[in-house]
């Protein structure tokens, strides 16, 4: 029965990712960074990511909650997700701190020479961890797409264009997931 409860908990967390909203948001993030790089407007990504965050919250309220209701995940689950986010932020901070080291520091050269690899690992890793945390397999594919997009720019250049393409791919996949969700869970009259 313990295992059955674990499966049920996984299913509950997974159900909230069936709406594709976070997929679209993940795609938008990659797209926004790519767009910002191509146009050379550094704050554009920040604006788009912030607007996207507000959009996902409104979309959950308009699309998800009326269809499958509202749940609060267990605190332990939330703590796990917070730990993942903290880990990603910590890694980002570490890279930043490495760049603050003196010019002669070999660690700085090591990181600088492999900068794209580190970005690809952190970004792709964060998406993969989110997939692991919510038990959503398609996130592993997204992680690979983003990882590939960043790594390909190591050989082909044009990081911005690669991120735009990767972002569009993830957003299109997210839209398909959302359409399936809307068809699967039509809004029924509520007594809430």
């Amino acid at each position: 029965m313990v295992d059955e409860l674990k499966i049920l908990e996984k299913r509950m967390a997974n159900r909230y990712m069936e709406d594709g909203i976070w997929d679209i948001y993940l795609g938008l993030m990659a797209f926004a960074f790519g767009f910002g790089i191509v146009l050379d407007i550094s704050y554009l990504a920040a604006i788009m990511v912030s607007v996207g965050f507000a959009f996902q919250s409104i979309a959950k309220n308009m699309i998800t909650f009326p269809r499958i209701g509202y749940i609060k995940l267990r605190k332990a689950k939330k703590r796990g997700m917070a730990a993942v986010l903290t880990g990603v932020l910590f890694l980002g901070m570490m890279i930043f701190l490495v760049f603050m080291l003196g010019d002669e520091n070999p660690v700085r050269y090591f990181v600088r020479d492999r900068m794209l690899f580190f970005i690809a690992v952190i970004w792709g890793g964060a998406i993969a961890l989110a997939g692991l945390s919510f038990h959503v397999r398609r996130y592993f594919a997204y992680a690979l797409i983003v990882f590939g997009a960043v790594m390909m720019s190591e050989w082909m250049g044009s990081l911005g264009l690669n991120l735009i393409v990767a972002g569009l791919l993830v957003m299109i996949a997210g839209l398909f997931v959302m359409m399936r969700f809307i068809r699967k869970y039509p809004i029924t009259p509520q007594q809430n």
Partner: protein
Amino acid sequence: MPGEKSDSQAFSLSDIDRVIHTPARLLIMKILYVLDGADMVFLKDETGLTWGNLSVQVKNLEQAGYVNINKEFVENKPHTVVSLTTQGRDAFSNYRAQLKDILR
């Protein structure tokens, strides 16, 4: 020895929590056990109960002190959120342990 086991099983069966021991309430308790709370829309969808039946079962659980019913606002929209109380969580854990004991 086999006689002893059936005595203990008989004791466990009579001791079983009747509030939880109905399919509808057991299902509601099981769902709420793995969450910190869920609204009525979610519970209706997950349990497959009708609005009326769900309402009655949740009320029964509330009267037993196993669940809390709160009106919460999420993004300015009201949600009737049902969550297990500590007493409800303990009762469900005991129920699981008793069932495990009986089925062993």
